[in-house]
């Protein structure tokens, strides 16, 4: 039981990632695909943060003693994955914003954001040209 709980977090990260992956492949709506891509990303974030955890650890914020010197209060989680994910979250919102802007442009051009409808419109245009 303890063995399984020890890798429970890693399983959830895989499940989240695969839900996002399924959404990206299976869903035809482009907005939905952008959200599914976000789910995929949070799965990876969960993987990183899970690795940083240490038994009985606290937040990696130290305390100052005496004349400004610092020390840790006890075992603490590894801050490096936190740093990586902190910036990754902000970059992910930038990615989402650019994706949504492109989706809006597609909406103007085709009047729809459903992937298969767009392909159909493209095919019709191709037929009209020919």
């Amino acid at each position, binding site marked *: 039981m303890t063995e399984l709980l020890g890798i429970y977090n890693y*399983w959830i990260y895989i*499940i989240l990632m695969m839900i996002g992956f399924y959404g990206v*492949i299976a869903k035809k709506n482009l907005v939905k695909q952008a959200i599914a891509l976000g789910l995929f990303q949070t799965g990876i974030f969960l993987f990183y943060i899970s690795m940083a955890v240490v038994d009985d650890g606290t937040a*990696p914020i130290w305390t100052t003693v005496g004349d400004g010197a*610092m020390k840790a209060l006890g*075992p603490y989680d590894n801050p490096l994955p936190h740093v990586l994910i902190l910036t990754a979250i*902000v970059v992910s919102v*930038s990615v989402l914003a650019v994706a949504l802007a492109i989706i809006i442009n597609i909406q103007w051009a085709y009047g729809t954001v459903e992937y298969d409808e767009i392909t159909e419109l493209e095919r019709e245009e191709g037929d009209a040209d020919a």
Partner: protein
Amino acid sequence: MSEVLLVDSVLLFLVTVCAVAIIEVRSLYAVAMLSSVYSLLMALVWTNMHSMDVAFTEAAVGGGISTILLIGTLVHTRRDERPAKRRLHIPALVVTLLTGAALIYGTFDMPRFGDPNATIHHYRVPEMMSQTVAAASGREGKQQPPEGYDPPPRMTPTAAQWAGAVHAIDQAEDALEKAQQNAPGEAHHGGEGEHHEGAHKHPVDDFNGHVPNSVTSLLAAYRGFDTMFETTVIFTAGMALIMLLRRRREEGEDDFSQKGAALSGQVILRVMTKMFIPFILVFGFYVITHGEIGPGGGFQGGVILATAFILYALLYGRNALYRIIRPRTLEILAACGVLLYAGVGVACMLLGGNFLDYAALNTASPGDGEAMGMTLVEYGVGITVCTVMIIIFNQLAEEPSKAKAS
């Protein structure tokens, strides 16, 4: 089983349910709200794993800004997903199940959750924090680990060892205080307390300045270059949005006055928002400025500042926002944030250090120099993040009617 794991399993179950709902629900407005719920749950998961800065960012970005962006997009596009012919996409299911199975097979080789002996923890944090640009150039300063500091092979000792070490340090500090009282001016800090038999205690030394939040310390010093370019990525995203959606703005440049806000009739909302905005702004500045001391920093604070402006625009209309801050000013400020970050680096070079070697800012007290440099850099990040978020919101929230006309 620890409390962390207990809360963790419950929260992660909820997160998974939420993720399935996001994929399966067809109303896209519902999906936008669900993704906000998902982000807030994720923020709780991060808090549970003691990752305060990430939780802060997730709550502000995922719970706040992303939802607004999604709803801003749904105004332009269809609100419902078209129903699929078949409920389940069989090829996708097969691919994901196979990939998932392969990855789960891989997890059996992963170290246990919270294992202090995992490979990732072998590299001790004080060593990373001492590896700033100045240390690489071999310059003397507080970046150097103290004399006689012997890196132990493992990061985390057992709880019993910690108790011993903390006790030893308390004793050493008491002794030090007595020594200082006896001979004022001569006693200096650090070195005495850290060596206790069997215990690996981080040395009592401020070799990365007065920056107690090691996340910020790593963000701005150890990974200073990365953070600078992450800020550039955000700046680039803002510019990309302006270029992608610029078409309408040129046509309607002088049309701001015609755009009324849908919510302007809501008296209670308007009055309450007006009362809230100053507090949001103060909180945003607090989060940026206290980034080195507690959880927070430029990314989180910038997003919080942006929400104040976005809230104002939602209630009073974007023309009201443009009266306060013109689009051109926003674009210039976004560039200024990146410039401030890079400028701090150049200032360090002019003062005789390396690029982003903050200790050069205050040679008399390198620790203060580090803290000052990091605060300046955080402000650079904060300005860029704040203005780019407002730019993104403004671009996405353009009137849809005008789009069809173009």
